């Protein structure tokens, strides 16, 4: 997917991702596996800002988002040897780890008080709606085209789950549908996008 972003888009849209795609994530991860801490630092310099943004969108508290980013880099260092470049882009691998860390913090039962209270959030909840997130994707994006083909409520469920880390139950209450319905909508929508992306 990242390679398809090369050179086909207008300049102003490309800056952050252009920088990301010019950087060889897979190579840096392999160097981490050999114990090269400089490579981890390069990954950090390259991605910490973007990761913090993704983690903030899920956690809404800077301190927790920072912890997710730290957890992520510690994991990257430890798991670098298990990275298999033939199975996918390095950047997607990094962000999968980051999102899993952030989601673990979000769902950590022992922190319900700290993560659940809106009062403790560092910023008001002005996170963009799922509709506007889809519009933030490049006009040329295939993912965007595929998401736009979904029925709106299902698309919203899918995007809310991915970007805010909502659980099946939370998506159900957000969409005001029964849990089972939300589950099957999201899973079905995921498959539809997968098929559309092929």
């Amino acid at each position, binding site marked *: *997917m990242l390679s398809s972003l090369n050179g086909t888009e207008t300049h102003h849209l490309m800056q952050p991702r252009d920088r990301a795609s010019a950087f060889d994530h897979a190579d840096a991860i392999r160097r981490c596996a050999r114990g090269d801490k400089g490579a981890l630092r390069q990954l950090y310099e390259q991605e910490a800002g973007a990761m913090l*943004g993704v983690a903030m969108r899920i956690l809404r508290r800077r301190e927790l988002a920072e912890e997710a980013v730290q957890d992520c880099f510690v994991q990257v260092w430890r798991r670098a040897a298990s990275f*298999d470049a033939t199975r*996918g*882009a390095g950047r997607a691998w990094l962000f999968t780890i980051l999102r*899993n860390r952030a989601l673990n913090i979000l769902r950590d039962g022992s922190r319900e008080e700290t993560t659940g209270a809106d009062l403790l959030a560092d910023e008001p909840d002005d996170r963009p709606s799922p509709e506007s997130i889809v519009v933030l994707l490049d006009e040329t994006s295939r993912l965007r085209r595929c998401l736009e083909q979904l029925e709106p409520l299902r698309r919203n469920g899918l995007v809310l789950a991915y970007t805010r880390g909502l659980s099946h139950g939370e998506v159900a209450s957000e969409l005001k549908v029964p849990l089972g319905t939300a589950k099957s909508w999201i899973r079905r929508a*995921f498959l539809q996008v997968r098929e559309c992306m092929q």
Partner: protein
Amino acid sequence: MSASRDDRVADYVLGLMEAAEAEAFERELAQDADLARIVAESAAQFHELDATAEPRPPRDEIWRGIESRLGTQRPPVAVVRPEWAAIWQSLRFWRWTGFGGLATSAALAAALVAFVARPAPAPQFVAVLVPADSTAPGAIVEIDAQGAARLITLKDIPVPEGRALEVWTLPSVERGPVSIGLMPRAQSRGLSLTAVPPTHSDQLFEITLEPASGSPIGRPTGPVLYKGLTVQAL
């Protein structure tokens, strides 16, 4: 497992799994190249959504924290770790064992007491033992860097008259299960790993119900009450 393979791929990539479920799925990915390929491909497809989050400038403290956690570089100033830091570390590693999202507050409190009540050498491996039909943990096994192992029970386990609880580990399939402790009732206690090779990730630990004097054949004979795989603690 009622969810189909496609459902589980969707749940994992979208982030809809509980921590323990996600970890079990990751272990499956390590064994199943085809599944891993499908997951990596899906993750790459949806990854573009990550670019719609507004980037935030990271504070320098984040990198310093990473460095100190990696432990190969000294933090700039030697600090004496306050007691709360040890408790915090315990919470932290529980999250990574997948315990966090599932724990009832009572189990967490009970286990916290177990942690706070003794000076805790940093565990190197942790296994959260759960029953076959539930994700509620019943016990934790932790092994420190010296190979000292400890069982921390989180729940009372009913033991019928004339029976006992036996703790086992499976260092390798060739070697088979090895008994590492026998107890008349659920209790937190040390475990003896002297007869087995050094612990590794994904090593099975389990508790079975056996005759009061232990399994007569040196292998588990009774039902498996709780089991779990080791995970390396950070």
